[in-house]
């Protein structure tokens, strides 16, 4: 699975421009899905199975897009100004490397700050691609870039850019691979444009009209030095999301997830996240409403070029997801 994760996280695919990631996913699951289609916003929707006795139409969603940058101006000396795609913050950019969709590489640096203890704003940052003039700059206005950081393993923990949310994409692919039987009509949705407002989930949920849905996404942890106090940590298993900044999970779905984890002996954590949300929020409000929940993968340093997950957690997430979709769902 680590090879799959490495391939996924090292692909360039910011919001709105996910086709390279989609092609990778299609290659991985092509033989496994009963039906695959790509919709108007680039979502990859893969159907597996049909509804049997006690089955439901279930939607699972992990987003393919990562946060990134888009060029707004190339100055006469070939320096590139940019704005952000999704939640990028200045302090994770300075000195960092980027790769554009067209292959050009560069680094981000900053103008001399007004005062040494103030963080620069994005207007004060620029990308240096090694060009010397506008004419020989390989980048033009509108070109798209992502952070450029290789995947690395540290003592059983995996670090890379775009763990948010390629790790969930990997979990969904592995769950599909490991699935032996399900009574449900399953829709594995590899969604687009989550980071800019859950846009892919909104439209894919409308077309599927599921009876129940789970998003699979990363969540914060509280186990690093002097950070926010949060009860989710690395190494304690998948997190069952009760609430985040945009959504309250359906209590029946939370109960179902907790009961399933307990019955299968899978460690889990209960998650309340203040700030941040996932595809589940958009799916919940589709058409006449959808009971939703979210399985979260605990992650450190989210939205930095070095996001960290625990490999055991990831494997437990795959297990839990398979357990959830292998049996009839009693929402009660």
């Amino acid at each position, binding site marked *: 699975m680590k090879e799959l994760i490495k391939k996924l996280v090292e692909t360039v695919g910011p919001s709105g421009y996910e086709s390279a990631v989609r092609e990778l996913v299609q290659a991985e699951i092509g033989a496994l899905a009963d039906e695959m289609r790509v919709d108007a916003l680039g979502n990859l929707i893969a159907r597996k199975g049909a509804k049997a006795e006690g089955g439901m139409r279930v939607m699972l969603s992990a987003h393919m897009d990562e946060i990134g940058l888009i060029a707004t101006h190339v100055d006469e000396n070939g320096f590139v100004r940019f704005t952000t795609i999704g939640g990028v913050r200045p302090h994770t950019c300075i000195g960092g490397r980027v790769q554009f969709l067209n292959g050009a590489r560069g680094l981000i640096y900053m103008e001399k700050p007004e005062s040494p203890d103030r963080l620069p704003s994005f207007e004060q940052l620029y990308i240096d691609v090694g060009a010397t003039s506008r004419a020989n700059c390989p980048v033009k206005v509108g070109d798209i870039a992502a952070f450029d950081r290789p995947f690395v393993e540290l003592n059983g923990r995996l670090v890379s850019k775009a763990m948010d949310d390629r790790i969930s994409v990997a979990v969904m692919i592995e769950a599909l691979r490991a699935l032996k039987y399900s009574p449900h009509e399953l829709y594995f949705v590899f969604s687009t444009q989550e980071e800019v407002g859950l846009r892919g989930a909104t439209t894919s949920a409308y077309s599927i009209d599921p009876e129940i849905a789970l998003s699979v996404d990363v969540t914060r942890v509280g186990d690093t030095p002097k950070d926010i106090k949060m009860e989710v940590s690395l190494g304690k298993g998948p997190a069952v999301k009760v609430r985040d900044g945009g*959504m309250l999970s359906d209590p029946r779905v939370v109960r179902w997830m907790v009961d399933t984890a307990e019955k299968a002996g899978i460690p889990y954590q209960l998650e*309340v996240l203040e700030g941040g949300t996932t595809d589940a929020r958009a799916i919940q409000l589709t058409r006449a409403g*959808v009971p939703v929940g979210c399985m979260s993968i605990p992650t450190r340093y989210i939205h930095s070029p070095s996001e960290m997950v625990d490999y055991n957690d990831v494997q437990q997430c795959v297990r839990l997801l398979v357990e959830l979709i292998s049996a009839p769902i009693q929402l009660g």
Partner: protein
Amino acid sequence: MPELKAFLKQMISLPGLSAYEDPLRAVISEAWRPLVDELSVSKLGSLHGLRRGTGSEPRPRILLAAHMDAIGMMVTRVTPDGLIYFTEIGGVDPRILPSTPVMVHGKRAIPGVVAQPPDRLLPASVKGSPVEMRHLFVDTGLEGPEVNQLVRVGDLISFDTEALDLPGDLVAGHSLDNRASVAALTACLQELSKIRHEWDVYMVATTQEEESLGGAFTSPYEIRPAIAVAVDVTFATGPGVSDYRGHALNKGAMLGWGPNTHPYIFKSIKALTERLDLPHETEVYPRYSGTDAMGMQIVAEGIPSMVVSIPLRYMHTPVEIISIKDVERVGRLLAQYIASLTPDYANQIRWDEA
């Protein structure tokens, strides 16, 4: 009227935070059951009560929505000593929290009080200033191990302030936003059961208004009404509310005017309040009404919408105040409006004067 007040006080004694409205929905169902033809629950948990009209098929539908969810808190962590830290559900001003009685809904309902730590145990910058929610906690009086056995992350915390009867038909308590409107819808149903109406009426107690307008976006998609009316509370004049945004308590219904309101519906209802000699005022809002109408108006191809409000003091505190008379007036107005709807009223709805 004593019945209505008793029903309202019963509702506000129950928890029913956004997405967790089950206990309240059960009580509303019981009250509505004898007054409607069909009761159902939406996929997200809104309560739909259908009262069929007497007109011939196909009958047009009107939807009246009052959100049943209330604000409160949710447990974020429990310390080994049994101190319970929390986050908000809906908008909670942390300044009203210290010393507030609450109920923690763990394995059982556990009473507690919100504690404000002394300044000497907080960052120096806090000294004398209101304490942020992240430093407040609930003290249940129980020992650490017992609390940890009963309470966990994600459990709910609701206000537990007892309701008060005040002279002048006033009621003070928590969750009057928006149970007062649910009571108004119930009063409307009671009046409808005594008069004729041609249209089908969907009474909806919506879920999750305080968080996401969840019920507002989803119930109309299922019901597809020709008109949607949001019944909510609005600001009453009093301490902290002294400009145009506040209206007097016990002076009748507030009729909403602004972009979420269809002018034709507004004018029909205003004319009716004048005909019935019911006290009322127009409440203008330049951009958003802050009610379920924001969601209902833009469902599918769009729905002509209206906002009718009950003035309320100290909104989003455990000591909200409303006038029972205002609740009755709104219920009566809505019933009479529904009774006035002719089968072709929907075709007459238009934006502009000819």
